[in-house]
């Protein structure tokens, strides 16, 4: 009778993230670990070969041999994709979050990126506004349409979205939006009310939680009632919001000269590129939306 191999006993040494250290240093009791999540950031599931000639034992051979990176301490850079608990094992399709440019704001025709014009001077320059869609950072309410994110199953293999509703346990009831707080903030789809961030971390990343129960103005028609849809299969919720420029970007060129570049968009402009991250809190599905803040020189 051979001994069991216990070399695989798993004890992992954790490192504090920068936010963890900051909360620990505050000493106000905000450093309290309450839950955990598992991540698979390094895994490329495209390597899963269901047709491997050597059989099912080899389907994931490429995946299990993937090297794993050391932990690093930037809280926003780790656990980007999380593992999900769904009690059912018979799911073949999972919902995604898709940027709907049919009814929502689309990228600017000239620079092919969602564009925010940060002040009145920029908005009043018709050579700039003629380049394509933009968020009116001077008067948000004048923006043509909000940014729209639809959740649902892209394929219609399990039913048409106009008649089949997404399963309740896969439907998002809360979205998380993260944005660099130095550059912008989140408003509802009408540009009428600014959202309040849940917290701003040490890297100036503001996190907003928007819930279907308490933030109704951020949600459009959902499920089979959704119109102008880009999702063929069963649909969940529609999130709609706007991004407003920060006061710093509106009133100063400091951040543009420090962190941005110059370009021509109709006229000569300063610009800063950043990302707005939208995550479904239920499914953990995440979309990074590139966005550009533009200011006339």
């Amino acid at each position: 009778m051979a001994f069991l191999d216990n070399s695989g006993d798993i004890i992992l040494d954790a490192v504090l993230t920068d936010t963890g250290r900051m909360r620990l240093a505050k000493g106000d009791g905000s450093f309290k670990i309450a839950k955990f999540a598992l991540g698979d950031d390094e895994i490329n599931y495209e390597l899963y070969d269901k047709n491997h000639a050597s059989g099912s034992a080899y389907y994931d051979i490429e995946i299990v041999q993937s090297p794993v990176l050391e932990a690093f301490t930037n809280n926003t850079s780790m656990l980007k994709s999380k593992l999900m608990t769904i009690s059912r094992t018979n799911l073949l399709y999972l919902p995604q979050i898709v940027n709907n440019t049919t009814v929502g704001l689309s990228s600017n025709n000239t620079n092919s990126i969602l564009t925010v014009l940060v002040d009145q001077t920029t908005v009043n320059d018709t050579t700039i506004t003629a380049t394509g869609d933009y968020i009116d950072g001077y008067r948000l309410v004048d923006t043509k349409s909000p940014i729209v994110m639809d959740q649902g199953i892209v394929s219609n293999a399990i039913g048409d979205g106009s008649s089949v509703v997404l399963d309740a346990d896969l439907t998002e009831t809360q979205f998380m939006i993260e944005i660099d707080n130095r550059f912008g903030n989140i408003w509802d789809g009408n540009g009428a009310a600014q959202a309040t961030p849940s917290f701003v971390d040490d890297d100036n990343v503001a996190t907003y939680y928007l819930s279907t129960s308490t933030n109704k103005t951020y949600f459009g028609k959902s499920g089979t009632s959704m119109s102008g849809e880009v999702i063929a299969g069963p649909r969940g919720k529609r999130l709609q919001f706007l991004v407003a420029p920060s006061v710093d970007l509106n009133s100063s060129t400091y951040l543009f000269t420090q962190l941005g570049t110059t370009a021509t968009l109709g006229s000569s402009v300063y610009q800063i590129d950043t990302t707005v991250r939208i995550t479904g809190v239920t499914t953990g599905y995440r979309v990074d939306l590139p966005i550009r803040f533009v200011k006339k020189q």
Partner: protein
Amino acid sequence: MATTFKTLNSANDVASTRTLLHEAIPLTGTIASGTYDDNNIKTYSHGMFESVYDYPYLSSSANHIFDITTGYASNSSLSGSGVQNSKKLNVYSQMAQVLVGYDATGSIQNFDQDGDIATGGTKINEAIFVNFSRLLTKDEIKKGSFIVSFLTGGTPAARTDTLTLQDHEGATSYKVNSPAGEYGILYTSSSGITADSGVGLVYYQAGVAVLTGSIFDGTMGPGISSGTYDSLATGSTIEVMADSFRNRLVDIDFNNTVELNSTVYFCRASHNEFNYSANPTYLSESQIRVKNSTTDNPVSYVTTVGLYSSDNELLAVAKLSEPLKKDPSTEVTLRVRLDF
């Protein structure tokens, strides 16, 4: 309901542990005198002590390893009008007030040979102090591990008679009547230990060795000038005394101690948890890549464990050495340790 977080149960999933880690610290005497032509010895204009580094101290690579100073009590026979008399008194008083404390009247007590301060007995009235850097001692010197050797006889040019001191009973009968923590008594031998056989004290948490001057029976001096310990103590500066000590040092060995407080989080993934992924590559046109049909088991691969606050802020991260397959036929408990 799909979820990505699992709440930790503070009663069953979180455990706190305390571990003592020890490192062996060997300090060869040639570091203190010779190897770097004293370029690793830092002296000060105030002349109260000198510092020994492990490399020429002007280098950014140098680490401070210990300080040497000396002094005597006001009731010592050496006290009077010798060189740097007041500074030697002050050094002794300062070390005594920190390491021995005060009596009922508020007077600073002298170092006691056997540590039994209350009943009087022989005092160490003339002492050499070796103050070790926190870098070496960490949280404390391991009890029973402290060994220091000198050449106590002969002349500065021809030193003889190696004397080794150790806290022989330190592991079992250390003293606890110091305001600076626990301390042991240094003896020349493990046999024949009596109340009068102690020749020094080692304060474990403070990281200070107190050596009685009487162990040096030869003539001392850093070079040309030499004399007995007593004549040097009254006729020379603290700096010269420290140089003399360095020249007679053979080696110092001890183990340090780090008290490591850890919290272990038991991250339990049951058979029906964490089998799906939100990884963008997990889906192709919304279909799960690792499944052909609804009857296939979902599969995911764990590479990272994140510990979160109740408001979903990532506070700590741990990584696995290789991807760990998770499917409905497996349960996994990942023990994640966070050290403080």
